[in-house]
């Protein structure tokens, strides 16, 4: 339809690429700095900050990978993230099912309450949360992080799931009922399998949220036994403040799981974030 000459298109594309590459440089430079910096030693970092490592020095990476603390922190992060996600998704699915499929008095009010929960900034709650967790003796326990995180993850997940459950036509449920399935059977055998894509999306959101959380673990996990990666990185950078190359290697390795995960779950992550933002 549009009549554009080859030349004009070429000009336009050149403009695009210039802007895109400037942004790419802006985005990638710090990450490349960490990646390459980890392969240098400190003297190289000082004298040859911009160039490639010469010689390539793998000691920083291998040292971190050989240390027990790194793997322990990876394990804590993974464990906390998985259990949080499991709780969030199971609970939300059931609650969203009730909100979507049963009519009862006060339903909308209760739902609004949940939705309003999304508005509570987490930082507001962290102090009283700390006192509550202390009362229940959940400090220094992974569940002291998992339970509050799960609670704060509920609202968004419920909203997304309810919207999806509602979009499934009532005929599906009627057909199941005629075949003799009760609500529970319908929920576990038909609705949940049908919702696999949304469940994946919400799981990814919960997983990423937990993986990245910092303030709650910082407050709850005072002993290093259950430290998650974000806490570990911060602590490590303080402990080895003068050994920049080693810290860079640690930072890079701590970023790696998120990058790999992003590479695989990119679609779910982005669709989850956009739908979360627009429906919230």
């Amino acid at each position, binding site marked *: *339809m*549009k009549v554009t000459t080859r030349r004009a298109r070429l000009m336009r594309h050149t403009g*695009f*690429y210039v802007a*895109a590459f400037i*942004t*790419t440089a*802006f*985005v990638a430079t*710090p*990450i490349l*700095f*960490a990646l390459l*910096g980890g392969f240098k030693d400190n003297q190289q970092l000082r004298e040859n*900050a911009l160039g490639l490592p010469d010689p390539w020095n793998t000691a920083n990476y291998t040292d971190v990978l050989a240390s027990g603390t790194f793997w322990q922190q990876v394990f804590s992060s993974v464990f906390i993230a998985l259990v949080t996600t499991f*709780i969030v998704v199971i609970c939300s699915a059931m609650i969203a099912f009730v909100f979507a499929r049963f009519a009862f008095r006060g339903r909308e009010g209760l739902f609004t*309450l*949940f939705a309003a*929960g999304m508005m*509570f*900034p987490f*930082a*507001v*709650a*962290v*102090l*009283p*949360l*700390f*006192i*509550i967790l202390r009362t229940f003796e959940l400090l220094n326990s992974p569940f002291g992080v998992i339970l509050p995180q*799960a*609670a*704060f993850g*509920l609202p968004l997940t419920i909203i997304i799931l309810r919207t999806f459950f509602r979009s499934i036509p009532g005929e599906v449920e009627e057909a199941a009922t005629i075949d003799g399935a009760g609500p529970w059977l319908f929920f576990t055998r038909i609705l949940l399998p049908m919702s696999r894509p949304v469940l994946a999306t919400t799981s990814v959101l919960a997983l*990423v949220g937990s993986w*990245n959380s*910092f*303030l709650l673990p910082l407050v709850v996990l005072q002993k290093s036994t259950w430290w998650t*990666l*974000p806490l570990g*990185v*911060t602590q490590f*950078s303080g402990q080895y403040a003068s050994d*920049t190359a080693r*810290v*860079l290697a640690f*930072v890079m390795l*701590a*970023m790696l799981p*998120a*990058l790999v*995960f992003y590479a695989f779950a*990119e679609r779910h*992550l*982005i669709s989850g*974030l*956009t739908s979360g*933002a*627009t429906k919230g």
Partner: protein
Amino acid sequence: MLFLLFVIVPVLFAAYVAFFRWNGLGGVPTDFVGLENFRNLLQDEVFLGDLWRLGLIVVLSLLIQLPISFGLAMLLHQRFPGRTAFRLLFFVPYVLTEAVTAVLFRLVLSPNRGFVDSILAAVGIETRIGWLSDREIVMFVIFGILTWKFFGFHMILFLAGRQNIPDELYEAAAIDGATGAQAFRRITLPLMGPTVRMIVFLSVIGSVQLFDLVYVLTGGGPFHASETLAITMYEQGFQRNQIGYASALSIAMFLISLVFALFYQRFVLNRDLQGSITTAGGNR
């Protein structure tokens, strides 16, 4: 239940404790001081500074960060080879943990010949700037890092909003003889309205809660020059055991978000709902 226990109760509890002077130890708070914590808050220079810095971050975000994200979203909406790769790449910083990002940037900006200094030296500028230790510039440096971290997220949201505009509108406009610039002004901008308003909302609420990144980068220093509301709250509550005072601060944060959200919904988002919910029962 879980939700009630860990979301609603804490906020109510904070509201209660805010009226006491309490170090958080032993039993229930007993030293009732009424509104004193709030009165002190309003005279606390750190708190007032927090508010000022919050305003600064919000204004900078609206004037610089969001327009850049918007521009890039428009750019990546165009068809050209490699745009998917760019899209993926620009989103990467958002995926990284804030605390880890902060450690990385502390090294990038390190005062003794850090990476940025080396780059500047390579192009012939010898600097002795303490990127994170100079009171005058620390907030702008932090803003730069925030932009690095979050522009990709905003860009993806803008992009999603742009993709929701049907192509038919542009085809119709082209048939009617509209130029590209006209189509942008008359179609793209108005129809992107809801997306823009939502992103502004998310951006402001996010700024109120800012903690991880700044805490790890500077700890709020030098001399409170980059402190945020959440950091002040953390310092007072967890380092100095001023639980009552910190609770008052939490409540202040809560009220700021709440008031903003209500006003925003009433006066700005309202427009997006008109004709759907608010006016469904006739004119108000």
